[in-house]
Each structure stands twice: as structure tokens, then as C-alpha cells.
């Protein structure tokens, strides 16, 4: 048991290089937003080839492996639900297409196909914030305990981050560009030193890495207000790195996934569309209920065979735990003490970030995390 007022223990360092996922025979590329396929069943594809064009938010999709298009079929997604998907048969030859060439204007953001964790296009966030941006904050802090994808993005892809950051600075002309690094992320701070931005150290405490809290603490956003358009823009460093790599010729066809459990974690470098079950196997994770995202705000993983899609950067294996009945609220006030928004949760008023810190420290909270209940 940890002292409650230390909060949720944060920060697992990137200690080992990421493991590359072995070649997968079948790659599933879902088209959840009605993207138009540019290839037909039976067509050969090469790695990095543009295989679908966006419709609603016009982000293209690139083939992560070389091979043939095996089918265009409805497939189940990891988060639940299903949609039309391109299924590629990997030929194992890894034939590369021509390197991606992006225009030197705003269209590059759309053509790169980069999405933020959660699935929102990077281009959309940037274009909304573009006019009169005051502060651009790039966050190298992981949002959730146990995970280290953001830390890894800065430590391992510093070149790509530099390229992406240079482009964003050129396009957006922010008055200040800040890079938020957790107090314990020494390697990341070293990697950030040569970048064209001011490195700011933030205490490594959950949930201070939340974009809104970063915008408040570093961007001088008035507390309690959601970030206003055109004032402060907070971007995760992993998205900046992916965009930088696209500028250098590699579209976002691979993604690092942090698989974490109570006593360990692994960083897996996997192609988009690989089944999550293969990633879990490569991580040698223990058995247990699975989550998409982190243990504080994640959601149940419904189909472990679902494909890796942009936006999935972390998976969690929950510890097996016995059922515990809660007690009535004993009015200890810990929830208010840890609330980053200075709310009094028992009143149920004010703006809530849904960070879960209050429930984490609540001595009266009960839980029933049996495997069935989490999975169903």
C-alpha cells in the first residue's frame, strides 16, 4: 500500500530498446471513417504504398507491409464494434514503395496520415489552433501511469521530433514553443536539449500530464477553462515524431505500443494492422483482464484479435484482484486533496477531467474487477 498523498506512482523509464513484432501473415487495415480503398482485391502492394484515401477527415492510409490485398471484409475492432477493412496478405519480402514526399505546406499534415493518441487527426488539431497561436506545448510526458510511449518517442526518435517541430514552428509561428518533460525523464531531457524549443520540467505526478493541466501550468491558461482555440496547443511528442518521420519519407505504418502490467512493462514496435493478441504475446505479458489505454482512464479491450490502429499506444494487463465491497463515504476529503481541478467531488459540481485520481485514493471505494466483468 502506498501513501495516498503521493498520488498514483508515475513514470516507467525506457530501459530496453523496443522489441520488434515478428512478421505477421495477415494485416488488417480498418476503414472506420468510410475511407475509399485505392487498391482492389488481388492487387499487389508494397510497404508504404497509399492504399486508401480519406473521406470525412481526409487522412490517407498506407500499407505497413508488402504483399497482396487478400480481401475487403467487415472486421471486428479492438475497442468493440466492427467496420469494413482491407486485409493484406504479407509476402514477407518487405518490398518498399518510393519514399513519401510531402508538400511544404499545411497539406503535409493531412497527407502524412498522422493521428493523435485517441484517433483525432493531427492536422485537425493544428489547423484549428493555427490562427494566432500563442504557445505550442509538446508533451513528452505519458498521460497514464505504467506507460512510456511518449518518453520513448523523444528518447528514440529525437531526429524525427526535430524535423516535425521545425515544420510546426514554421507553419504556426507560435510565440513560444515549450517541451514538457517529467522530472524523472533524464534521458528524454537530454534528447530534448538540441531541439528548437524551451524544455520545461513538470513534476511527474498523475494527472499533471493532462493537456488541460499542462496548458494551465505552462501556457498560462486561466484555470478551470478548457483550452481556447488559437491560444494554447498541446501535442504529444509521439505524434510530432510520427509526423517528422513522414516528412523524412516514412509514413506512419509502424507504431510503438507500451504493454504494461503491475510489475513490468514492454515496448513493442509493431506494424499497423497487426493483431493486438500478437503484440501481447510478444510482450510476454501475464494473463489478466485487458485494457486499451492506461489503468486510470483506459477502457476494456473487447477483441484481443482486433488490429492495431492509429490511436492505440498502450495496453494494460490488470492485476487479478479480489472483490471488495465499498463502504459509505467516510468524508475523509482525500478526493478533494488530490483533485487537479480543485473540485469537491462530493458536491458534483465544476469542470471534471475524468482523471480518476479521486477514486484511486478513496478508502471507501469498492471494486469488482473480475475478468468477465472487465471483458464483457
Amino acid at each position, binding site marked *: 500500500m502506498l501513501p495516498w*498523498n503521493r498520488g498514483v506512482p508515475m513514470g516507467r523509464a525506457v530501459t530496453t530498446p523496443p522489441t520488434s513484432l515478428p512478421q505477421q501473415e495477415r494485416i488488417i487495415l480498418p476503414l472506420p471513417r468510410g475511407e475509399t480503398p485505392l487498391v482492389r482485391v488481388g492487387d499487389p502492394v508494397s510497404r508504404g504504398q497509399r492504399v486508401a484515401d480519406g473521406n470525412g477527415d481526409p487522412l490517407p492510409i498506407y500499407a505497413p507491409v508488402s504483399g497482396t490485398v487478400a480481401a475487403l471484409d467487415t472486421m471486428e475492432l479492438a475497442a468493440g464494434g466492427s467496420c469494413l477493412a482491407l486485409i493484406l496478405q504479407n509476402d514477407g519480402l518487405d518490398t518498399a514503395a518510393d519514399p513519401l514526399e510531402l508538400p511544404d505546406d499545411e497539406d503535409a499534415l493531412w497527407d502524412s496520415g498522422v493521428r493523435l493518441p485517441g484517433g483525432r487527426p493531427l492536422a485537425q488539431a493544428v489547423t484549428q489552433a493555427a490562427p494566432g497561436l500563442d504557445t505550442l506545448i509538446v508533451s513528452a510526458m505519458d498521460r497514464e501511469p505504467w506507460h512510456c510511449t511518449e518518453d520513448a518517442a523523444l528518447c528514440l526518435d529525437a531526429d524525427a521530433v526535430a524535423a516535425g517541430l521545425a515544420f510546426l514552428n514554421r507553419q504556426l509561428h507560435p510565440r513560444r514553443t515549450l517541451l514538457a518533460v517529467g522530472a524523472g525523464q533524464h534521458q528524454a531531457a537530454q534528447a530534448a536539449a538540441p531541439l528548437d524549443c524551451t524544455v520545461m520540467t513538470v513534476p511527474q505526478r498523475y494527472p499533471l500530464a493532462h493537456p488541460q493541466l499542462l496548458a494551465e501550468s505552462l501556457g498560462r491558461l486561466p484555470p478551470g477553462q478548457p483550452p481556447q482555440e488559437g491560444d494554447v496547443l498541446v501535442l504529444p511528442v509521439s505524434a510530432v515524431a510520427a509526423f517528422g518521420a513522414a516528412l523524412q519519407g516514412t509514413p506512419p505504418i509502424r507504431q510503438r505500443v507500451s504493454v504494461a502490467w503491475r510489475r513490468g512493462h514492454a515496448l513493442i514496435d509493431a506494424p499497423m494492422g497487426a493483431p493486438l493478441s500478437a503484440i501481447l504475446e510478444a510482450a510476454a505479458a501475464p494473463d489478466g483482464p485487458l485494457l486499451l489505454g492506461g489503468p486510470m482512464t483506459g477502457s476494456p479491450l473487447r477483441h484481443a484479435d482486433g488490429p492495431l490502429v492509429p490511436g492505440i499506444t498502450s495496453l494494460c494487463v490488470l492485476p487479478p484482484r479480489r472483490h471488495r465491497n465499498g463502504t459509505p463515504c467516510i468524508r475523509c*476529503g482525500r478526493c478533494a486533496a488530490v483533485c487537479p481541478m480543485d473540485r*469537491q467531488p462530493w458536491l458534483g459540481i465544476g469542470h471534471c477531467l*475524468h482523471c480518476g485520481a479521486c477514486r*484511486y485514493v478513496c478508502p471507501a471505494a469498492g471494486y469488482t474487477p473480475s475478468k468477465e466483468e472487465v471483458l464483457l
Partner: protein
Amino acid sequence: MNTAPYIHCGQSTALQMLDAAIALLPAAAGAVWFFGLRAAAMLLLAVAAAAATQFLWDRFTGRQELRTLTVLVTGLLSALLLPARAALWAAPLGAVIAVSVKVLTGGIGQNWWNPAALGRAALLPLLCPLALKDCQGTFLMAYLDGAIGEASTLLLLVGAAYLAMRHLLPWAVAVPYLCASFLTAAVLPHCDPMAVLCWGGTLLGACFLSADPVTTPMGLTFRVLYGVFTGAVSTVFSFYGWGMGGVVVATLAANTAFRAAETIAARLQNTAELEQV
């Protein structure tokens, strides 16, 4: 829990109550040392009576409050707040009243009044002459004539240090409480402020009666005001000879006033928020 977050710090109501009971153990050991087997019998009888009462209420009303271990704290405090000269049945009777009133006013979390303080206050009519006789003169006179729990300030400090170590000591109440006691004693005629600070009753009120999260206010402002109010009033009561009785009466008055104020404040805040939307 079936929704996020899926991890928990591991703290529970029962563990918290167990810690509060452990913090009372040095004072309980001191009571046995100073007052012998009689004190040991008072402590055991009080805890047993509290547990038995809670068990019966749980059976009767379908609650599950025995496993929150609040009875340990209630039982120990019920005995520690009584003088050694009290009749042997006084401690268990106080504990039974404490637990019963707690259950009847809504059970853990809902009760307005500190159970142990309420049990002790209910015994005041029975013990009043005794209490008055005991507590005349200076505060340090309380040493062996007062409640068995206040015998050694040093042992109470050890318990308070344990509470602080486990992050259970309500600093926002205890510090204002002690300051208010000191200042009130300084204002009162023929009263030594240092003696008030060194009196075990002050520490018992500041660190242990106020460490009950249920009956102390939740917000920081209310906590500080609660500490100031209780510290000042209990010092005045004790100065006029009520001894430990003064502390419990002050605690109960503060419980009532501040719970009511908190409820009203919450209503007002909710209304203001609704009007904004």
C-alpha cells in the same frame, strides 16, 4: 469497480480505522500502567460492548459495519475518556450508547456526532459530580484524577506521531485547535497556557477526537474554523472544571454546528452552480 480507474491505492476504511486504533494503543497501555487492571478491564469491556452492539445492529438492520472496524476506535475512546474512578459498567454503557446513536443517525458516514464523544457526554449526568470534584484547580491536576486516556501526554504524542506517519492526522484541525487552546488559556485569568497545551485532554481532543473523518468538516476552511472553535470552547469548559467532559461537549457542539453549516453551504453552492448553467 467496473469503470476506470482500474487500479486503487489499497487504502480502505477498515485499514484507516485500524490505524486510528493502533494510534490509541500507547495511551491505552499508559492507562493500564497507571491505573492497573481496572483500566484494562474498562478498555476490554468497552471494546467488547461496542463490537457486540454493532454486531447486533448489523443483524437487526442488515448493515455490514462491523467489518469497517470503527468499533475498535469507538470502544477504545469510550474507555479512555472516562476517569478511573468511574464505575466498571460506565465504559461499556458509553460504548453501547455511542454505537447505537451512530447506527440510529444513519450509520458510518452519516452520523453527525463523534460516537465516542457522544457516549461520554451521555454519561455526564451520571458522572458529573465526580467530574466536578476531580477537575478543580490547575490543568495538570488532571494527571491521575482525570480520564484514564489523558494520563500521559507523552504517550498521546506517540500515538499522534503514528497518525501523522500514516497520513491520518488532520493537521488543518489539530494545529488551529492547539493554537486556539493556548490563546484562550492566555486570555483566561489565572490560567497557565503551557499547562493547557501539556494537558492530555487537549491533545486527545485535537488529535484523536478530531481524527474521526466522518464528524469533522471536509473543506479546509471549515476544518480550520472547527479546530479554532473546538479548541477555544473546550478550554473554557475545562477551565471551569468540566475536565474531559468539557472537551466532549465542545466537540459535540462543533460537530452539530459545522455539519449544519456544511450542509447549508453545499446547498447554496449547488444552487449557485445550477443558476450559472
